[in-house]
Structures are given as C-alpha cells and as structure tokens.
C-alpha cells in the first residue's frame, strides 16, 4: 500500500485548501526559506515561490517519523517546543508531520514506549530524523545517564545507526552545555563529538528557540536535506548573525551609552547592556530577529544582558554579569602576592649572586695587583 502524503493526511483531518496554502507560507517562513535558495535545494532551474516549494513537498512526501531522545537535560527544550509561540505549528510538526517517539511527550510509558521506539526504528530504518536533547556522557561507559537499563551511549549509537539526519537541540546536546560545565564530572560532550557518520546539525540555546528547532526539522522533511551550517554546525539561516548585530539597543552601544546597573537612569532609558555583562557581540542566535513568544520580546529587549547560551562553554565563559572583556581567569590578591614574592625573590637572589661574584672578582683583582706590585702578600689591611 502506498503511504499517505502529508497533504492527504492533513486534508483528512479537515484542513481546507486555503488553510493549507497559508500553512505552507508560514512553514516557508519558519524554515528561513528566504535565506536558503529553494531552487538549489530542489535541484530545479526555475524558482517557484517558497510556499510552492513547501506545498509541493507536503503533497508528495509521506510523514517522516522523528525519534526524540533525552539524555542529560532539563527537558527545557521540549518544554519550549510544547509551549512555543505557535502551538498550532509545533503541534503540526510533532503530530502531523509526525513524531513517533518522545519519552516525555508520548502517551505510552515503560516497556510499551520502548517497544514503540524499536518498531519505529525498524520500520523507518534509514529514513527517520533523530533529535537529541541533553548531553551524552562518556565517563564510566555512560552509566550516569541510562534509560530502560541502557546507557546513553548505546542508545545514541543504536538510534543514530538508522537515522537519515541527527538534530541536536539545546546547548547540552550541541556542546555539552551545563552538564559539561567545569569540572564536567560525567564527561558530557556534544552529539557531534560522537556521531561522525551521519549529518548532524546543532540548534544550541538554553533552551533552543522552538521555532528554530521546528524550522530545521521542517527544512529536512521538506527539502530532504539539512540547512547550510557554520563552523559549529549551526544552521546559517538562524545563526548567521550575532544578537548584537540585530540588537535594538545597538544605537546606544555605538554612542557609548551604557546602563551601569539594572535600576539606574541608563537602564530606564534602554541603554546598551554591555557593562552589565552582555555577551551579544559574540553570540550567534536568532533571538533578536525571531524573538520569543510570538515575537513579543527577548532577553536583551526585556532588560537582561545576553548570556551567550548558544555558544560553547557559555557556562564557564566568565561571570554572566561580568563584562565580556573581563579576563576569564583573574589574578586574585593571594596569587598576585605570590607572584610578586616570586619575582622579588628571584631578583634578590640574582642580585645577591652578582654581589658575591663581584666582590670575589674584586678580591682576585686586588690579589693580582698586590702580587704584581711585589708587596707583602701577608698583609691584610683591606678586606
């Protein structure tokens, strides 16, 4: 039997054609299709509009299952998705474009859930999308994170083996995140550090912006490939600019007008938050463009400096409220005192050594001189 296409599935659920076309437009926007040439992606010569590309795909493609695994995480990324600004859309992605296995969101539990996953992995081998939330952990063969008696490493390898693509969502899955914070007791790493034989895309953030995760999933489902990425495997449509690039406080930055505390005159006037520790200049994410809660706001707009949550090591990159330019490792009073001590001791020792050498040389010189003059060698008038 031929599988139902997504379009057929949606029509069956009562979606009108008009609503379907509207949906395609929204999806195209979510995928950041303005930035990705759909023509190139589909291998076509003449470019249809982004909506048409999406419509075409939904009309011809069957549902693709998503297997969503959670390792060392707080489920915040899942939370963000399930409460995202467009619950209808995320519902659509998770239910209608299909999710087959999500430990937290699925109705099934226990052995039932495990069985559902195994069946899905078998049936869709080589086709499904694997989404990983939370960091895998290497220490002691992965025993610090186990599900149904299996270590996270085994679970990850097993699920990745049949995946068409792997999407790491949230800083933990991408770069180790908070579990990897110093001293990283469980040896948490990013998914891409372990999975080398499959295309992996990173959607870092704490949590990841839900529209970016769903947008990237859609991109794969609809165009059949992952979006173009930067050096850190982040999709360029969403991570091509820094928070600082599109910040609404930027004019104040340019003028050198900074809030000095959270409640001073500058803060009330909406000045730049650089002095309060903003990491916007080095943080690549779509916060300033997409924003959160239906484009309502994002941290910097609400008066809080950017924490840099989409960057590796953001947890250990100096204090959140400490300027970005402040050194990460500081010299405290006692180590400074020790260093001064070392320098002084070395200087004094060398100076002492030199003094001894000099006085010896002087003595020798005197001896030589007195011998050469033939005077009484026994006399010791001067030392």
């Amino acid at each position, binding site marked *: 039997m031929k599988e139902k296409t997504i379009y057929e599935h949606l029509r069956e659920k009562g979606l009108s054609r008009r609503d379907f076309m509207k949906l395609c437009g929204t999806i195209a926007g979510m995928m950041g299709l303005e930035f990705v040439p759909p023509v190139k992606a589909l291998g076509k010569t003449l470019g249809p509009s982004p909506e048409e590309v999406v419509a075409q795909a939904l009309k011809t493609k069957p549902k693709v299952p998503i297997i969503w695994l959670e390792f060392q995480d707080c489920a915040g990324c899942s939370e963000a998705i399930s409460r995202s600004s467009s619950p209808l859309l995320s519902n659509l992605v998770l239910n209608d474009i299909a999710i087959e296995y999500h430990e937290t969101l699925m109705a099934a539990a226990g052995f039932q859930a495990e069985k559902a996953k195994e069946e899905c992995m078998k049936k869709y081998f080589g086709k499904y999308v694997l989404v990983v939330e939370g960091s895998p952990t290497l220490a002691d063969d992965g025993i610090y994170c186990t599900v149904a008696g299996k270590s996270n490493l085994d679970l990850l390898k097993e699920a990745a083996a049949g995946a068409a693509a792997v999407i790491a969502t949230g800083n933990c899955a991408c770069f180790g995140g908070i579990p990897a914070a110093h001293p990283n007791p469980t040896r948490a790493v990013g998914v891409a550090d372990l999975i080398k034989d499959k295309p992996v895309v990173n959607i870092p953030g704490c949590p990841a912006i839900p529209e970016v995760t769903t947008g990237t999933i859609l991109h794969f489902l609809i165009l059949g490939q992952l979006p173009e990425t930067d050096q850190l495997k982040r999709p360029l449509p969403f991570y091509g600019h820094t928070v600082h690039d599109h910040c609404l406080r930027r004019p104040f930055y340019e003028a050198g007008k900074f809030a000095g505390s959270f409640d001073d005159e500058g803060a009330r006037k909406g000045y730049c938050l650089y002095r309060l520790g903003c990491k916007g200049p*080095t943080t690549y994410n779509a916060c300033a463009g997409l924003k959160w809660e239906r484009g309502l706001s994002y941290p910097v707009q609400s008066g809080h400096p950017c924490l840099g949550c989409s960057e590796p090591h953001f947890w250990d990159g100096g204090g959140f409220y400490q300027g970005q330019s402040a050194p990460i490792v500081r010299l405290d009073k006692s180590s400074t005192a020790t260093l001064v001590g070392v320098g*002084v001791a070395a200087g004094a020792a060398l100076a002492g050594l030199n003094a001894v050498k000099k006085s010896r040389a002087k003595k020798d010189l005197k001896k030589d001189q007195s011998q050469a003059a033939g005077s009484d060698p026994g006399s010791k008038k001067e030392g």
Partner: protein
Amino acid sequence: MNWTNILNFSRGPLLHVAMIIFVAGLSYRLVRVLLLGWARDRAKNKGSKLWGVIVNYLKGLFVLPFIPWVRRTFRHNELTFIAGGLFHLSLFLVLVFGTAHILVWKSLWGFGWKGLPTPILAFFSAAGIISMIVLLINRLTHPVLKMLTRFPVWINWLVVFLPMITGFIMARHLWFRYEVIFSLHLISVSLLLIWVPFGRISHFLFYFFSKTIHGAQAGKRAVTP
C-alpha cells in the same frame, strides 16, 4: 579548532599566563633595579627634596608637554614630539576610559567608573594609531635614529601597535567576525604583557623612578629641575 574556542583560550589561560609573567617579571625587574643601588649623594641639603619632586612632575608631565615650544626636544623635531605625545595621551584615554577596558579594571579591582563616549574614543584611538605610524616612519627614515634602533625597539613598536589596531577594528566592527578580532586583540595584548618586563616599555614604571630621584636631587640643591 574554531574561533569560539580560540577566544575562550585567549580570554582564559593565555591572558592568565600573560598576567602571571607580567606581574612576576615586573617585580623581578623592579628589585633588580632597586638593588643596583645608587651613588650616595653627598651634597648638602639646601632646599626641599619634596618640593623638587613636585616641581619636576608638574613641569615634566603636566605643564611643559602642553607648551612644548619651550623645549629643545620639540624644536629639534616637532613631529616626533607631537606624535609621541598624542600616542601616549590616546593610549591613556583608551586604557583608562574605554568601556571594555574599564570592565577589565573592574574585574581586577572590584570597581569601575564612567567611560568616554565612543566617538571620542574612536577619534583618539585613530589618532594614536596614526601617531604610531608616524613614529615608525620617522625611525625608518631618520639617519641617526635608524642606527640607534636595535631589534628590540621594533618589537616594542609592534607589540603596542597590534593591540591598538586590532582594538580599533573590533570596536568599529570592521571586516572580521567579532570573536576573531577579539581573539586577535587578546593574543596581541598577551604578547604585550609578556614582553613588557623584558623590554623598554617598562619605562611606564621606571620613568617615575628617574623623575622622582632627579627631582629630589634638584630640590636638595635648591635648583629648578
């Protein structure tokens, strides 16, 4: 290796090591100079040492640089005098009143202060950079100066110039991704910090020794320093 990691490295371990070498190295240099001792000044005290020191600083640092035409060094070569002065003024303003740098001081000492508006800083850092280029050209072309300039002097120039130019580019967001130019700025700053104890740039410390001693000697003899 990606630039995000390089930035973390240069903001972290690299700068840390550079600061360690800077502090220990300068303490070492200071002790070596102090323990050299100086010849006993057997002149009778006819005036006030303190007064001599005060006058020496006032004249040397706060008055004469701003009416330079009374000075021989200025009349000899106006361009280098102005370029040298402007360079030091810019360096001072950028390091003490640049917001990014204030945050460095704050992290070290626990308190900060207000910075200068960015356009003013931009003007001075540009002026500082141009002055440095003028000083370099002067060194390269002046027949006597060229002979006097040994290898370490070129290094002095380079390790100061690199932080200046990378800082300027970074603050204007030109050409590079921010984490790239930020890394380059910090790598060059680290080079500077490591080099300072071993080279002549330590004059920012020893200048005050010679100025104080010279002033005291003059004051003792009741002559104007």
